């Protein structure tokens, strides 16, 4: 009797914890297999250091303060570049989505520029800015600009026309119509742009820091390569993965917060 009574309770207690752990099973298993493969000598430490060695290298760098400094520099570049490029892209997306004139004036130009891979500008950017901070910020901002611009524009253009008509019938002013109908309607698409942009942000930063920098995670990896410190190289790659995951989680949290009305984000 007591066993039957306690069964459902045990199940409801165990499920949420298991749910939170499931996504981490695969990464943890990979690390475990990797560790075993290194310890048994199946993979040479010159090709791939064991996870424990990578953690040790990270610990040393953390104690010396280098790691924190490099992460901070990279994080600062990523976020400032993202803010600059993202806000310009958002502003153009709004303007071109709302105004025919603005769209006719700038959209064709932006579509042409979009087709140039922004990393192809690296030689030019080095000539212009040297290996200064502004070079990295410029590249990140440029890379982030287009996904935000395109998705904001698309979001605004695809807002349900019937809702806009409804808003007009009920006497909304242009400002109200934007605030209550157009912007919330475009938001899901803007978030798609945001998450694309976050991916491009890291990609651009890694490339820029690897090619031309005197600090940051990419620089740390390049330095380590010169001294054959393969554990540090692997460490920097893992840190990029974690930072990318962090940015993605942050944007998901923001999505859940602002799109709670959306059936896809409702908890069951």
């Amino acid at each position, binding site marked *: 009797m007591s066993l039957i009574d306690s069964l459902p309770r045990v199940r409801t207690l165990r499920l949420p914890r298991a749910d939170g752990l499931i996504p981490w099973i695969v990464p943890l298993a990979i690390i475990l297999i990797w560790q075993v493969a290194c310890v048994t000598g199946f993979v040479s430490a010159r090709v791939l250091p064991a996870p424990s060695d990578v953690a040790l290298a990270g610990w040393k760098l953390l104690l010396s303060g280098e790691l924190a400094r490099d992460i901070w520099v990279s994080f600062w570049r990523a976020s400032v570049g993202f803010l600059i490029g993202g806000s310009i892209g958002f502003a153009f997306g709004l303007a071109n989505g709302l105004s025919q004139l603005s769209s006719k004036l700038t959209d064709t130009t932006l579509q042409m520029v979009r087709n140039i891979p922004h990393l192809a500008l690296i030689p030019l950017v080095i000539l212009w800015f040297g290996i200064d901070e502004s070079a990295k910020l410029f590249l990140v901002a440029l890379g982030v600009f287009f996904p935000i611009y395109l998705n904001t524009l698309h979001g605004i253009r695809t807002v349900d026309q019937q*809702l806009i008509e*409804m808003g007009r*019938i*009920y*006497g909304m002013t242009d400002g109200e119509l934007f605030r*209550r109908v157009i912007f*919330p309607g475009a938001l899901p698409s803007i978030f798609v742009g945001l998450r694309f942009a976050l991916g491009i942000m890291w990609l651009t930063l890694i490339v820029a820091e690897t090619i031309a920098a005197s600090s940051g995670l990419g620089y740390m990896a390049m330095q380590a390569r010169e001294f054959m410190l393969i554990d540090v190289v692997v460490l920097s790659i893992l840190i990029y993965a974690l930072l990318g995951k962090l940015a993605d989680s942050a944007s998901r949290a923001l999505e859940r917060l602002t799109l709670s*009305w959306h*059936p896809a984000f409702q908890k069951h």
Partner: protein
Amino acid sequence: MQGSLRFRPIDAEAVESPDFVKPRLLRRDANALLRGLSLTIRGLRKSFGDNEVLRGIDLHIPAGQSVAIVGRSGCGKSTLLRLIAGLESVTAGTIGFGEETRAEDVRVMFQEPRLLPWARVLSNVEVGLGRERASADAQARAESALVEVGLAEKREQWPAVLSGGQKQRVALARALVSRPRMLAFDEPLGALDALTRISMQRLLERVWQDQGFTAIMVTHDVAEAVALADRVLVIEDGRIAHDINVDIPRPRRRGSAELAVLEGSILKNLLQGTEDSSDL
């Protein structure tokens, strides 16, 4: 029975005749005089490019009447409704309400609920207040409109979790919240299942009787038209082909023989001329 069917050819200019005022409606009509708007349309034409959709409509609707507009698809009935609601501009002719009106006096309800998915039910109803949205009693008025359609307990829900009928009731509350004096319905029940339709029809009839607004409803469902309306207009080729008073006392019993006979004769008229109507 046949006495209740009066088909009038369009040429007859007698649309202003007061023969629709029936003694049993007097109490409600007194209320309607205060609340409803009357509507007078003269020589109304509407073209989209070369396509003339409405070819001369003359119509008078007294305050507080409920009128159903039926016709085949493409006959111009929805266009007429959109013109009355001010959603399109007229090509020629006039539409007058006989007095100065505010924007909040005429409201439209569409086939789709057109609720803002990102606003809670109560905020969606508040949208209907128009420029009075900012007033202090906005929320109280929205709440009482929700009570009127029987959805008070859904006030904090997202529209996505409501059923089709519930969404349409929220849209009705939004249309009612500004106490309009004329309500235009464009196939408001067209997307609902049969049972939900019947309960919505009862709800529409009840709020119309309570509030005394003038109701104009476009529908493709003749049974719905004769069940709800005081008067049925049949539109053919952009003109009013028939103007029928429905003299059946309320509350009308759905499926009654009287309604069925009237429905049959209107359908027969609708089908005449193009197809063999012997199957009716």
